[in-house]
Each structure stands twice: as structure tokens, then as C-alpha cells.
């Protein structure tokens, strides 16, 4: 049994979601190979080769993969898929776009966004925005699986697997990358941050949000948001946490002005300690919070910022 993992990377560094997906793949009891497709991706391939449990890295270095265009990457995976019993990718915006194409052409169902592996065929995955957990058994044939990164620990470094140079796959020529607007942030990456502070509609104004950003910097926290906060333009779409956004499982999650719709809770309820700050004492978010503070947001954000400074957080 051998698994192929589609690595997520920016040519130089490997995304943490890859190491987490490797952990999941190792639980299948398989030999694990990692596909690093990129353009000038030697560093990312070397990083993948160092992850414990990796048997080999397939490096496909070609301008075709300068950006992870779904049609081209799926065609590449399909060109080598017959060698593998399972194909896995992290359930990111990239993995989610590519893997269903692979499953469809292989004529196998995909198991989306697994959160637990019971045995090599049996998986848990959330449905209905995480309000229900489903246990499913995959049929015989190649397994095509996306893995929710926050549900698995990252595999550690400590190996030295061979990096095998592998030819590019066919160019489907269907899609052309034009450009991207990447949110620039010096803060930690949201899905792997130890601390996340999230804004909801209740934060209300840009002024309040700016104070929240100052608090985030003092706590070295990533900044998240509810759908409502993104919709009113407080922050960019890639900050959205929940059923249709990102899923986090941080050590500390601070929800500010977030009422706690199931669609948001599904994206953060596996955090270790949850703090809710809301002016409405009946907000559902308090039912899942370890520590709740009922307060008007504008003064309380100022107060937290000052109190953190007083306690030496800079």
C-alpha cells in the first residue's frame, strides 16, 4: 500500500498543512510519497524529504506548475495515480479544487475533509457544518481523500528521503493564471496559529478593528473573522473562519463580537481555550466558551489593549 500526497507549498517552503496530511497518510499504514509540483521548487521538495515517514519525494519542476492550476495538477496526478493505493491532499482551497477532478477520472468517490481515521478504509468527517459527524467506509479501489489539516498534528522533521525528479504531466491548456492578490500580513498564518483573535459583526467599526489588530500583535495572534465581519468589509475573505471558510484549532481562540452561529462555530470549536467577548449575554457563543466576558466592545477592546501593555506584552 502506497499513498501519494499532494504537497502545498510556495516553491520555497512547505505549508504546514502538508506535514499534517502526511500524519494522516501514515495512519493509513501506507508507504508515503509526496508530490511537489512547482516552478523552482527544489527547496520545498527538500523540505518534504525531511519529514518523518516520507519514503520519497517526487519533484516536478516545470513552469506549468508555477501556480497550482487545478486542471494541470490533476492531470499530473492522474498520469502517475495508477502507482498508488491512495491519493491525499490537504483540504485547502487548492486541494479542494484539484482532488475531485482526480477522483472523477479514476471513477471513485472522494472522501472529503476527513477529521479522523478509524482504519485504512474507515473515516470520520463532519457534515451539516460540523453539527454531525459521519463515519464512512470507502469502497475498494484507489482512495481519494482530502484531509482537514487542523484535525491532525504535523509530522515532525527527521528523515532524509530521496528526491526523485519526475517529468511534467500533460498541459490541458484550459486555464491561464492571470494574477493574484495575496493578503500581506506579518502575523502568523491563520490555520496554524497558536492564538487566534476573531472579529464579528459586533466589532462594528474600523476603529474598533484597529484596536483588535493591536491586541493581535501583542499576543502574536493571527486574525480571523466571521462571515458577517467579512461581508461588512472589516477584513479580507481569507480571514473567514467557519463552514465555508477556514478551520482552526488554536490553543487560544478569542471571539470578539461574534454571536456564534453554527456556521462559524464549526470552524473554531476544536480550539483548546475559547474566549467570548460580546455585549449580548445570551449570545450562543457563550455556550461553548471557556471564559466569557459580557461587555461593550469599544471600551473593552481599549481596556484589553492597555492592560496587556501594562502586563508587559508589546
Amino acid at each position, binding site marked *: 500500500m502506497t499513498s501519494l500526497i499532494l504537497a502545498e507549498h510556495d516553491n520555497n517552503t512547505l505549508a504546514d498543512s502538508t506535514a499534517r496530511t502526511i500524519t494522516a497518510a501514515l495512519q493509513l499504514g501506507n508507504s508515503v510519497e509526496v508530490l511537489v509540483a512547482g516552478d523552482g521548487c527544489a527547496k520545498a521538495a527538500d523540505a518534504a524529504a525531511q519529514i518523518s515517514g516520507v519514503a520519497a519525494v517526487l519533484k516536478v519542476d516545470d513552469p506549468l506548475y508555477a501556480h497550482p492550476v487545478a486542471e494541470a495538477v490533476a492531470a499530473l496526478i492522474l498520469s502517475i495515480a495508477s502507482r498508488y493505493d491512495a491519493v491525499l491532499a490537504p483540504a485547502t482551497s487548492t486541494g479542494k479544487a484539484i482532488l475531485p477532478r482526480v477522483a472523477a477520472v479514476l471513477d471513485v468517490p472522494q472522501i472529503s475533509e476527513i477529521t479522523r481515521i478509524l482504519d485504512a478504509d474507515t473515516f470520520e468527517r463532519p457534515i451539516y457544518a460540523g453539527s454531525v459527524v*459521519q463515519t464512512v467506509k470507502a469502497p475498494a479501489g484507489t482512495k481519494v481523500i482530502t484531509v482537514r489539516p487542523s484535525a491532525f498534528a504535523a509530522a515532525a522533521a527527521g528523515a532524509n528521503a530521496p528526491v526523485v525528479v519526475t517529468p511534467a504531466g500533460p498541459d490541458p491548456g484550459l486555464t491561464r493564471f492571470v494574477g*493574484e492578490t495575496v493578503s500581506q500580513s506579518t502575523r502568523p498564518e491563520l490555520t496554524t496559529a497558536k492564538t487566534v483573535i476573531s472579529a464579528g459583526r459586533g466589532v462594528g467599526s474600523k476603529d474598533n478593528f484597529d484596536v483588535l489588530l493591536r491586541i493581535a500583535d501583542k499576543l502574536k495572534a493571527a486574525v480571523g473573522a466571521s462571515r458577517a465581519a467579512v461581508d461588512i468589509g472589516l477584513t479580507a475573505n481569507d480571514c473567514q473562519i467557519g463552514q465555508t471558510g477556514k478551520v482552526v484549532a488554536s490553543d487560544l481562540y478569542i471571539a470578539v463580537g461574534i454571536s456564534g452561529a453554527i456556521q462559524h462555530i464549526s470552524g473554531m470549536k476544536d480550539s*483548546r481555550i475559547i474566549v467570548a467577548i460580546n455585549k449580548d449575554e445570551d449570545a450562543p457563543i457563550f455556550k461553548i466558551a471557556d471564559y466569557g466576558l459580557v461587555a461593550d466592545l469599544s471600551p473593552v477592546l481599549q481596556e484589553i489593549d492597555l492592560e496587556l501593555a501594562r502586563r508587559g506584552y508589546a
Partner: protein
Amino acid sequence: MKVIVTVKRVVDYNAKVRIKADGSGVDRSNLKMSMNPFDEIAVEEAIRLKEKGKADEIVVVSIGPSEAADTIRTALAMGVDRGILVRCDGEVESLAVAKILKSICVAEQPGLVITGKQAIDDDAGQTGPMLAALLGWAQATRVYRLDVSDRTARVERETDTGLETIDVCLPAVVTTDLRLNEPRFASLPSIMKARKKPIEEKTAADLGVDTTPRVTVLGVKEPATRAAGIKVESVAELLDKLQQAEVI
């Protein structure tokens, strides 16, 4: 250009689903059912394309029980021209859905298919890319902005790091994200008018697709619940607690 838009009848996003006593599945009886919210956005986008003169006919497809005709009527009331209902009772997996849609696309020859990026019941997010792959077409998932030209479409899509712009060759499959548009409400006159619009009924067998599930659902359960926490009275008390827990 003809546009096909797909709609799924799902448990309303505000309804709380219950687990059947034997844990075999979700009890959907007596729950409010609605059009999948992402599909509403897909319907709206198709109608806007027609209003802009980019599309000349919109066909809505739903796969599901006879009640899915109500979901199709909702789309017709919003402004879609005609409907196709593929009658299937029970769960239909994404791959079978994609095969049914492929068969319809081969017959209808659309220039564009618009689907939701995921359904809010199974949260699988597979149908759009699977359909594109089966047809050998381009895809654009999580679409934030769509600009259709003659032979290509320029698409902005939401990614985990921001926004990406791509050009896709048509025909293509695009899947909608939340901020693509705000779906309209159907007016009473358009609801009345929609009653006269045609809905063609087919079965999966008519289209040569076997919908027997291939993934076995062994059971469902509630997720682990969190123990109730405490309310703190002040910022100082909150920060004390967090320092004691060594998370700040």
C-alpha cells in the same frame, strides 16, 4: 449562450438537524427545506448574465425527490427559463450527481455551468470539479467575480491566501462563493409566471447513471461537546485566567 445552473434541496441553514435514534443517519422529517444557499448565488449569477445579454437561455437542474421540483420553481421564479428534475430518492453521491449532470450537458450543450461551491448538508464540495473533469472542461471554484466573454471567462476566485484571477476557456464549470452576488427575492408576479414554465422530469436510469451509493455510511453521531465555561467579570480577571492557563 446557454447556461446550466444546478440547485440542491437541503435542510435550511437555520434548521437544527437531529440524529436518528439508531444513529444511522440524520432525521430530516419536519425540517424546513430550502435551496442550498450557494446554489441561490449560482441562480442569481446566471440571471445577471442573461440580463447583461451574455446568456440567452438558463436551464436549472435539480437531482432529488419529487419535492425538489419546489426548489426548481424557486429558481424559475427568480428568472430561470426552464427546469429539469432528475428524480432520485435517497442519497446521491457527488460522483453520480456529476455523471447525471454530464449527461445533461452532453444533450444541452451549455457554454457555462454554474454550481454552488458546496452544499451545506454534506459539505463535500465535489460536484463542480468532478463535472468539469468528466467533461474535460476548465473549472473555476469559489468564484468571487465572473466576467464572461465569447470564448473565455475571466474569473476572480477566493483562495486561502487572498484572491486569484484566472482566464478559463469556455465551456467551463464555475462554482460560487458567498460574495459573488446577493440573490434576489422572487416577486409575486414572477412566482405566478413561474408556474407556467416547463419542468422536464427524468430519472437517472434514463440518463444511464447508476446512483447506488458506493461509500458506506456506518453511522452518524453528535460531535464532542465542550464543557460549559465561566463568565468573568473584568478584563483583569480574564487575562489572569489566560495567564494561569499559559496561553498568553
